[in-house]
């Protein structure tokens, strides 16, 4: 198998990295599955080393599913070094353990807290403003691009940088390195939410004062209960119950 074919195999398999997520090894099965073609390439004629490779990648591993590509790239590089007698498997396991925190924190912060809300809140705003189904379907494709360009970029760049840097990959795992991406998507989420509030406040229930008051109080209550008190169920249900009370009393 040629090198670049191997890397494509690893890249494609990485889409299933969370397929068997469990409490024992977390991403371990997916990580092992993703790197299995490398094991075949390096140790196919040496069963002892082949099973040793699989076993060490079934050890505990976790991280954000997109950002874990940095660990995949670095592990590929280090495994190739080990096969050449230039490294030790124990070093690799320690290195993977050290990456768990940064990979998770960075991915959660960038994707789950910024890029995902930005993309889909923009979708909500567009769907509110445009009723034509053809435009709406077209916008779904746009949302797909907006979300998946950074997604695929991280997967590809992560593997490439990981492979080039090996043990030094931790230098890339800082939110400062994604400043412009973060700024761009934060702008989208801010604009989308603000204009969604504007649209709903002005148009729903004819934009009367009570409606605007219900909207703003719901936003503040949900935000307060979720962010300050960490009470998701209350944050989701209290504004709805209050709206019912207001509806009965007014």
């Amino acid at each position, binding site marked *: 198998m040629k090198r670049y074919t191997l890397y494509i195999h690893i890249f494609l398999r990485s889409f299933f990295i969370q397929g068997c997520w469990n409490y024992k090894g977390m991403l371990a099965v997916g990580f092992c599955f993703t790197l299995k073609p490398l094991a075949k390439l390096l140790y196919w004629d040496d069963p002892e080393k082949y099973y040793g490779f699989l076993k060490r990648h079934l050890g505990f591993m976790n991280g954000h599913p997109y950002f874990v590509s940095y660990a995949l790239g670095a592990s590929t590089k280090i495994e190739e070094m080990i096969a050449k007698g230039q490294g030790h498997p124990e070093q690799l396991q320690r290195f993977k353990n050290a990456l768990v925190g940064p990979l998770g924190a960075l991915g959660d912060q960038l994707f789950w807290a910024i890029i995902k809300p930005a993309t889909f809140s923009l979708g909500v705003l567009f769907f509110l403003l445009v009723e034509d189904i053809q435009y709406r379907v077209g916008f779904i494709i746009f949302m797909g691009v907006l979300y998946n360009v950074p997604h695929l970029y991280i997967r590809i760049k992560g593997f490439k940088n990981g492979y080039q840097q090996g043990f030094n990959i931790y230098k890339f795992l800082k939110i400062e390195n994604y400043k412009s991406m973060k700024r761009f998507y934060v702008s989208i989420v801010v604009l989308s939410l603000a204009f969604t509030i504007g649209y709903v406040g002005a148009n729903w229930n004819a934009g009367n004062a009570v409606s605007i008051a219900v909207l703003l109080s719901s936003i503040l209550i949900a935000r307060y209960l979720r962010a300050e008190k960490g009470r998701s169920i209350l944050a989701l249900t209290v*504004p709805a119950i209050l709206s019912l009370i207001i509806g009965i009393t007014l």
Partner: protein
Amino acid sequence: MTDILLLVGIISILTIDQKDAFQFGISQPIITSVIIGAFTGEYATAIYFGIIIQLMWMGNLQIGASITPSGALGSVVGCIMYTLTAKAYASHLSALLLLTFFYTVGISFIGGQIEVLIRKNNTRFQNAIYKRIAQHKKTVVGWAITKAIIVQWSVNFLFISLFLALGLLILEWLKQPVLLTHAAVWRFADIALMGTGIGMVLSLYKSRKIQYTVALLSLLGILIFKFKLV
């Protein structure tokens, strides 16, 4: 009936995208609502529910091993329920929205607990691989992932089917009492749910700068849309 089962089957495949494979974002309620609209022929109704529910779950971050409510599954059930019963509740759509929303929240938390069981079951697959490696037998890592995804799909399918049937039954049962209420009682439900969704997304950002910018721009937005400046 066959159409609904086919729809549930397809949507169950899409919900795999939520955690288990690909993660392209296609299991988001705003997207699944369009598919539900296409199947039922009620685009506007399905998308309306999708828009309202979309913002709700984005504030729940799937950090590390944390268990979050299964918002994607709950939303699908809610969206199909809302779309199928909208005509029966035509005079009380806001009431239907609120009831469906509460049901969706409830089953989403149940879905989160079912996820715990699936993850525990996946540990069995990992242990089986360890055993085969120890015995130097042909390893089946890919097969373990395939089995885990099939289990996940089956659970998603059963979850959506069963809770959809139960939800429709509950809505049928509640129809008469709800239709007897004054429609005005429910009139602020839609706007409150939209506000809740926005508040949930805003809860992700602690930065004062972001909060103030949203507040200022939303005032501008209200003026723009109220006086149709664009």
